[in-house]
């Protein structure tokens, strides 16, 4: 039976490595891929009146840009490898949103790249990889 693998993808080198690794796994096991791009967003941030007015337009622009600049180029690459692929663009907290996608899509695994941030910054802000490892509903593969 074909399983679904969610790949967290933001266009970075680390996320490309995760995608490449996911492609090899999917080829070996006959899985299909869901490439998920999450735009960091908090509904509890503060906006100025003109930002509020333009928000809906900006959101549409951001979605379009993410689609064309980040997802479209790699979708072809996965298709060329002969793997069924779908995409998802969402707003939200990155780790939480990836978990939600995995749950909603009944995915078998989540693949993400590791940004390699260590020390002070990641202690304060936390890292997506570490958070996912703690809270994900499915096994998580963290690709260095």
């Amino acid at each position: 039976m074909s399983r679904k693998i969610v790949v967290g993808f933001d266009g970075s080198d680390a996320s490309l490595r995760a995608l490449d690794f996911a492609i090899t796994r999917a080829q070996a096991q006959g899985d299909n891929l869901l490439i998920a791009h999450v735009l960091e967003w908090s509904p509890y941030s503060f906006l100025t009146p003109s930002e509020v007015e333009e928000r809906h337009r900006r959101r549409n622009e951001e979605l379009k840009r993410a689609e064309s600049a980040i997802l479209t180029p790699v979708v072809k690459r996965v298709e060329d490898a002969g793997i069924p692929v779908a995409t998802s663009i969402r707003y939200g907290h990155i780790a939480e949103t990836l978990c939600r996608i995995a749950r909603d899509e009944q995915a078998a695994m989540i693949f993400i790249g590791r940004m390699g941030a260590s020390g002070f910054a990641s202690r304060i802000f936390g890292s997506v990889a570490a958070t996912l490892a703690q809270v994900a509903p499915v096994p998580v593969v963290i690709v260095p």
Partner: protein
Amino acid sequence: MTAFPRPLIPAAAMALAAAPAAAQGIDETVNEVFANSTGWFVSLIFSNFPGTTFPWIVGWLVVAATIFTIYFAFIQFRAFGHAIALVRGDYSDPDDAGEVSHFQALTTALSGTVGLGNIAGVAVAVGIGGPGATFWMILAGLLGMATKFTECTLGVKYRNEYADGTVSGGPMYYMTKGFAARGLPGGKILAVIFAIFCILGSFGGGNMFQANQAHAQIINVMGDYPGWITGLIMAIIVFLVIVGGLKSIASVTEKVVPFMAALYVITALIIIGMNSDMIGTAFRQIFAGAFTNDGVVGGAIGALIQGFRRAAFSNEAGVGSAAIAHSAVRTKDPVTEGFVSLLEPFIDTVVICTMTALVIIITGQLVVDPATGLFVQNEAGTQIQTITGNSGVALTSDAFSSAFGWFRYILVLAVVLFAFSTMISWSYYGLKASTFLFGEGHTKELIFKIIFCLFVVIGAAANLGPIIDFSDAAIFAMSIPNIIALYLLMPIVKAETRSYLDRLKTGRIRKFA
């Protein structure tokens, strides 16, 4: 209380202080010209009911708030819990993430209303009307929640959505579109009147009053220097943001203001806690002063007028400004934004304004005659004598710094930031009104923005008296066309509310979180 050293005057002021006489001359001229040219407008708005000393406009707002409260069967209490759930995002569809959330719409609107009305305006109310003014202020805040609910629901329902995804809303739009929908005449005329008053309001309470009181607080701490210098500096920063598109300043302000507001409330609570033995006395003064003559200017009626006036000025319920701010939220049901908006007068007036009033009362800033137990009026008989002789924002500063000497410095920062964020919000409201009147276009918008900046300078240079009169008059004038429209359109809000609450009760509207 220690005297603070004077050499803290900013460099700009030092350079310009070389000719202090000439500089003071500019302030005096500005003040005189301003008072003379706005006097007629102020007297028109604040004329009394025949044979009484009660300004008709205050009655206009309170009667409206009472009618909406009864018409919507105390919606401000019935929907309070649901409003909080909406702000928490319990009912937000995760697929709509990235759009303006209820929380963001609320905080954006709040940063326009939480301003110097909460700090300086309350001090004016308590300074003239005594502790009893607090009672009427809280009552006006609670009633005003129903007014705000009505106007914000309509603001979302009748907003304009453009092809590029931007939205414009506010009283101008519900007056034109809502009246057309109900087959009522005169919507366009009412909208034009509202837009004119809104532009004046954006120059007055949303601008000059803010600049004026920011300057007052700066000189209270730093030492005296001419107001037009503060005005010029603030005008330049406002200019950079609204004309130069310097978004970073605005977004920093938006982020810092909520923390300042929280810090303000917490400090007030600590001061109240430190004087816990005085809490009983303070509330006795508030209740007694609301109904009896305790020596304040105009007696109990004076307390009532001051309380209502400052509450309306602070939370802007019925003024129509919030309807502009709230109209951009993405929601399937306009009434949800109405629910969220009713939290605004609560936070603004019932919480923040009350804190200011309590701190002033509890720290004993108002002078009481020990023989009679009545408050002592100043020589001119215009307000209650305070320990330091200060009024407005300086009185609030005295009250807070009697407990924490350093708080006066925090308060300067809070006052300047509150003033600034309120100015940014009101420049937006005024701009919306001016584009409604004159159409969109780069040059037209630029002219409005430049005039707006000029009024910052005038506001900082003029005296508090004429500024506060004009600011009140302009903001209250907006409520005349707005409340007429609310009366005529309130059945639409009722239908929306009934339909929504029905779906909520039968589970057709469900929680996501």
